[in-house]
């Protein structure tokens, strides 16, 4: 672990990517690829930019390193392509 800095100043730009916040999750979205129509609603609504788009496969993909399990994507999905499950750790 790096040493702390004077006044908690962070000198590394974009370093928040290094901090994985997915462990905060108690509910987990499961993406069902077969039902995904690539409408991108989940991507638009995700408040944490935890959903990315696979342009080759034309599918939405969740990044569990950052997804906090809020369930907005599952609520917005019109095709039942996302279901919420309890996170088991």
């Amino acid at each position, binding site marked *: *672990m790096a040493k*702390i*800095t*004077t*006044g*908690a*100043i*962070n*000198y590394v730009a974009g370093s928040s990517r290094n901090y994985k916040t997915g462990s905060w999750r108690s509910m987990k979205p499961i993406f069902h690829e077969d039902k995904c129509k690539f409408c991108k609603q989940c991507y638009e609504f995700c408040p944490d930019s935890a959903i990315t788009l696979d342009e080759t496969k034309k599918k939405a993909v969740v990044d569990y390193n950052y997804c906090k399990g809020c369930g907005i994507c599952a609520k917005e999905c019109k095709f039942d392509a996302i279901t919420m499950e309890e996170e088991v750790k």
Partner: protein
Amino acid sequence: MVKKVMRGNEATALGAKLCKPNVVPAYPITPSTLFPERISEYVADGELDAEFVLVESEHSAMSAAIGASATGARVCTATASQGLELMHEMLFIASGMRLPIVMAVGNRALSAPINIWCDHQDGISARDCGWIQFYTERNQEALDMMILGFKISEDPRVLLPSMVGLDAFVLTHTMEAVDIPDQDKVDKFVGKYNPAHCYMDVNRPITIGSFSTPDTYMEFRYVQDKVMNDAAKVIDEAFAAFEKTFGRKYSKITAENTKDADIILVTMGSMTGTAREAITKMRAAGKKVGLVKISVLRPFPKKELIEALKGAKAVAVVDRSLSVGLNIGPVCSEIGATFINEKTRPMILSFVAGLGGRDILITDFEEVHEKTTAALKKGAPEKDTYWIHLKEELV
């Protein structure tokens, strides 16, 4: 050196001006209002090249001070009482981000009931905020502590903000002859603020005010505490350098007549002058009584206090504030804690006096001495805290 008669607020404003701050965000509040007034005049008259920021509250004043200081600017402000309370959360942010802001505080009572007069409750209630705290006895000391505040706060070994306390009205509004330090000497003494940790540079993007998880928060707090404790040495060095340059001697505590004293009175702020008079009178009557004035409350001068007080039979601490529910004055409780592991220690008595601007008289200190003598005779204090000059018929 020029001598001029001025009020305490003028002294702190002048002390600040001599240090050439770049930014002064301030919101007026009794009894400190004259400070922003003077600063705005200095700026308007072209005597001070600073950004004077008019804000809508003290919370904003401290927020603006933090923002400005984080760019690498030299920043000062002033407030008092409710204003300091409104700043409260920002005080921790200034110290946590290690920003060397210097602030004059016209020490005043807190509401309710509303009261604008002298009391140390505002400063005392802010003592855990991570700011260096000075309490001054005279206008000269208030001016000098502003200069010393920048010198100490901006030291790369410290980087903590400073509060310079001056008693409401007794100092803030009272005329006193003050030596004005030469500008070139102040320039040399304070130097330029060149922070290595936090400044604005478009080619060097940084994140300030970031968050810290349980993984690292304790370490930030540990370092803050360590730096504050270690600042004691920097303060001593700065006081010595100040004496060399300006000829006036300051120390974290001042002990007078303590060597042979059976009883030592401990004071802070303007009541010290009255205590000194009382001691002169009591000494003339053959009483072995001494005085310890605390000028720096944070970092708390434990070592010096033990050294100065350990030889006495009893120590009477006069607090001008409360820790409601403790029934021991705040400064007294800290002195008690200081002695807790000492093998031999004096009897330590807590006195509360002068709240909300009630005058502390020479006779009050004589009463403190009488009560302490009686406690010594009896072998124990009669009360956890003695209230001096309390109108019992009113309660």
